[in-house]
């Protein structure tokens, strides 16, 4: 299966990725050899029943976990050979995360939450404020900068989380069931925002979801089953944007 345009060097390239939890008789093979290429600007939805390996896959892609074997190239660099702190720096520089449970710091204003990645990046205070406000503005919450998560609705909290994820201008946004805790109207809002982000800013989006409606926003839908990629479909997103999805090998 190939994309609509000629091959470019993919931003993410997986070859024979396996992941085994535990050892001996109790060992569980969560991933059994996954090959996948993701080009810059792609929007990939990962689907599959629980236990199919999709979450494990996302953790490895997010550099939060390491594979047991196989190659993971990010911009052509071997991620599997990086140590813990190097992976942290890679996340800080290139990746943004959006979680199902929002995962904002409690009792902390939206602005300070969004500021957090910039703090770790070591930006000076002035820039931090400005960039954090700009990110909040992008998600339409500039007026809510001083509010703590407890004072925001679920949809607003997820938008703050997205602002936190994009404030560093990451190349890849990883979203783990971003609409899992939201009603359908908020879900649509979030998905439209994510696809706009992908379309307009060219951010590569990787998203795990179990809702087919949400997966349709993606350019490609990767189905997992029993630790392997079962099949790859085109989503509706493939028809709307100028960017392209890359082919899958293997």
């Amino acid at each position, binding site marked *: 299966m190939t994309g609509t345009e000629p091959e470019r060097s993919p931003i993410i390239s997986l070859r024979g990725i396996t992941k085994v939890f535990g050892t001996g008789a109790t060992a569980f093979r969560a991933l059994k050899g996954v090959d996948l290429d993701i080009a810059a600007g792609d929007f990939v939805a990962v689907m599959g029943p629980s236990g199919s390996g999709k979450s494990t896959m996302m953790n490895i892609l997010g550099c*939060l976990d390491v594979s047991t074997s196989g190659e993971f190239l990010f911009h052509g660099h071997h991620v599997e050979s990086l140590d813990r702190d190097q992976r*942290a720096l890679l*996340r800080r520089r290139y990746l943004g*995360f959006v979680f199902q449970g929002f995962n904002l710091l*409690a009792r902390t204003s939206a602005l300070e939450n969004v500021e*957090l990645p910039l703090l*770790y990046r070591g930006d000076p205070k002035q820039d931090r404020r400005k960039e954090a406000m700009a990110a909040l503005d992008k998600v339409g919450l500039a007026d809510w900068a001083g509010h703590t998560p407890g004072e925001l609705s679920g949809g607003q909290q997820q938008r703050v989380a997205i602002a936190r994820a994009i404030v560093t201008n990451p190349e890849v946004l990883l979203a783990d069931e971003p609409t899992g805790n939201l009603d359908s109207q908020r879900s649509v809002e979030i998905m439209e925002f994510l696809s706009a982000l992908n379309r307009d800013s060219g951010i590569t989006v990787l998203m795990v979801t179990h809702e087919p409606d949400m997966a349709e926003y993606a350019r490609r839908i990767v189905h997992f089953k029993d630790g392997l990629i079962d099949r790859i479909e085109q989503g509706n997103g493939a028809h709307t944007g100028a960017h392209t999805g890359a082919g899958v090998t293997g």
Partner: protein
Amino acid sequence: MLGTIFLLALRSIRRHMLRSLLTMLGIVIGVGAVVSMVTLGKATTAAVTQQIAALGTNILQVRPGQGFGRGGGGPSPRDFDPSDIVAIRQQVGGVMAVAPQASSSGTAIYEGANWSTTINGTTSDYFKIQPWPLQEGRLFNEDEESAGKSVCIIGSTVSTNLFRNADPIGKRFRIGDVSCDVIGLLTTKGQAGFGGDQDDIVIMPIKTVQRRFLGSTSIRTILVGVDDDYSSEQVQQTLTRLLRERRHVTEGKDDDFNIFDTKQISDTLTQTTTMLTQIVAAVAAISLVVGGIGIMNIMLVSVTERTREIGIRLAIGAVANEVLLQFLVEAVVLSCLGGVIGLLLAQVVVGIATPLMDLPWIFDPAVNLGAFAVSAAIGVIFGYFPAQRAASLNPIDALRHE
């Protein structure tokens, strides 16, 4: 980066205000206890030293008999006589002055006012040994001393009770059967360290007291002032040898007199109070350690409670050391803040306690700085383990933590 870590730590402390205050409490009490105890101990030592100094330093007080009593059984040791004074003056080196003392008591009467007081018979040398400035008037002259004239120098308590506010100099009052002219008024010394009013006294030439009150030439007490260049131990040895000889104490027998060295007493008392201070401080220091364990305890709970927060920080790209430092800085900031509050608390305690205990107010920078340094160190030592634990969390597990 450290600035960022500090900012993060301060924000986190602010977010958990109540818990932070409770965490600090142990250190506050620990530091407060150590500093106030040590300071009060030092104040006590200073007060004791001051009171000893009021007795006069480098003075040997010689009395017949052993210890403070006359000793049990046997004939009571005889008093000293004037020839002993001459012998000491001539034969003991390093002696600045020798003053015999003979005391009595009597009721002083002046124009209807009467006051029961102590009479101390001595010589002008007494004032050399134990400096006690006159407020007005003069000391005895040689003629008055050798002739045993009825002149006296009075303490301020006697003056107040007998003469009210009038100037006592030149007045004549009766004490016992003796009429006596006031030639000097002493400055107020205040309460003695061991009870008793030092200003309640009438000082007369020793001959007058011996002749008119005691009817003998015996001397109960000899004060020996030691020259500053000589050690009191050395003078005490020579003095002992001389007195044993003069009083025919045979070899191997105990002295039938005792020499009381104010310097020795002062050293002993200072040692005792210092030791007591150290013991109390040690007890207080235990509470400081308990405070440190309290910090560790709450930091550990805090790490567990904030597992998800740590997961978020790790996920968005904090390296392990940044998480470690944040928790460490939180612990150190808490313990240092606790230390500062503890120091302030100690100042309040000392400020209230010293006037109540009649002690001088003292501020010892070394004790305060030391206690603060210890509180900071406690933050580092007891904060490290929880911080280490936070930093070693796996981001995926931490994010999943409920």
